[in-house]
């Protein structure tokens, strides 16, 4: 297998670079590097593991075809977020029946953080899933990917003010519903 010559002080070439060169196994490494982002986004948007898996696979297949146009790691991240979001929104809009025979939530990592309340997490995920596709995507990009509204606007091809409006209204709805569902006073923070 051809390997790039590297000096002792430089890091090994990233999977993206190797995949663009067509090195064997490089694309597999690239998928492993980014699968959590893509699948995680799809699952948070669709709340259906089988559909999320399908969307995630399609995204990587499309990536394979589009590798030549990806210029940098940052570009790759933006590209993956964008393609995954758009595909998931399309799927969410076309779903007529939510009846599925699979996971509605993916298994959590083996170690659960002690300060995370699984019941609260589960409730919030369900509530996010009740939002319409666009506001749902805005919320997920904001809180899964920690994107600012301007960046979300670029990912979704949406005006920034629309993103902010979606976010503001969605959070108000989520806070109110979380308050009811979890038996709390309405959360204001």
């Amino acid at each position, binding site marked *: 297998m051809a390997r790039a010559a590297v000096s002792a002080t430089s890091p090994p070439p990233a999977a993206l670079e190797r995949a663009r060169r067509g090195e064997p196994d490089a*694309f*597999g490494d690239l*998928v*492993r590097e980014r*699968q*959590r*982002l893509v*699948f*995680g*986004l799809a*699952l*948070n948007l669709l709340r259906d*593991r*089988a559909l*999320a*898996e399908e969307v*995630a*696979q399609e995204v*990587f*297949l499309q990536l*394979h075809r589009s590798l030549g146009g990806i210029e940098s790691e940052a570009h790759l991240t933006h590209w993956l977020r964008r393609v995954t979001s758009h595909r998931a929104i399309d799927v969410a809009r076309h779903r007529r029946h939510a009846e599925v*025979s*699979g*996971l*509605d*939530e*993916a*298994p*959590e*990592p083996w170690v659960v*953080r002690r*300060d*995370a*309340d699984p*019941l*609260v*997490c*589960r*409730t*919030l*995920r369900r509530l*996010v899933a009740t939002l319409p596709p666009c506001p749902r995507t805005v*919320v*997920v990009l904001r*809180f*899964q990917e*920690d994107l600012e509204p301007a960046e979300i606007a670029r990912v979704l091809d949406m005006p920034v003010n629309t993103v902010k409006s979606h976010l503001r209204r969605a*959070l108000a709805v*989520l*806070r109110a519903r*979380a308050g009811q569902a979890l*038996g709390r006073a309405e*959360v204001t*923070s």
Partner: protein
Amino acid sequence: MTFDDELRDALRPSDPGPRFAERVLARLEPVAAVVPVEPAVVPAPVREHPRRPFRWVPLGLAASVTVATAAGVVFLEAQRRAEGERARHQVIVALRLTSGELNEIGRRLDTRATPTETVPGDPGRSEERVP
């Protein structure tokens, strides 16, 4: 923890599992998923007759059938694996929902002074009292 933090926790991305990349790669190169097999070698017949031209056709046919059979076996195995994974996921869903419901009952019992109540219209069977 703020509401925003709780949302971040709730929306923490999940991993699709260790074999996801393999499933993607299999779709990229479906032919590569076929287990390579040596073409079946048809033993040479005992030559009782004058030598005849070597028969490529049955050898090629045998090779095709063998490869097709291997591909079929791989396909069936992939189907079985998909079904098994799906069943595994469903088991986890079911156990999560069951535990979640039991946990929810515990939460409600914890927050109420009189934990057990008879549901209006219920058959009136006796139930375990929760202290």
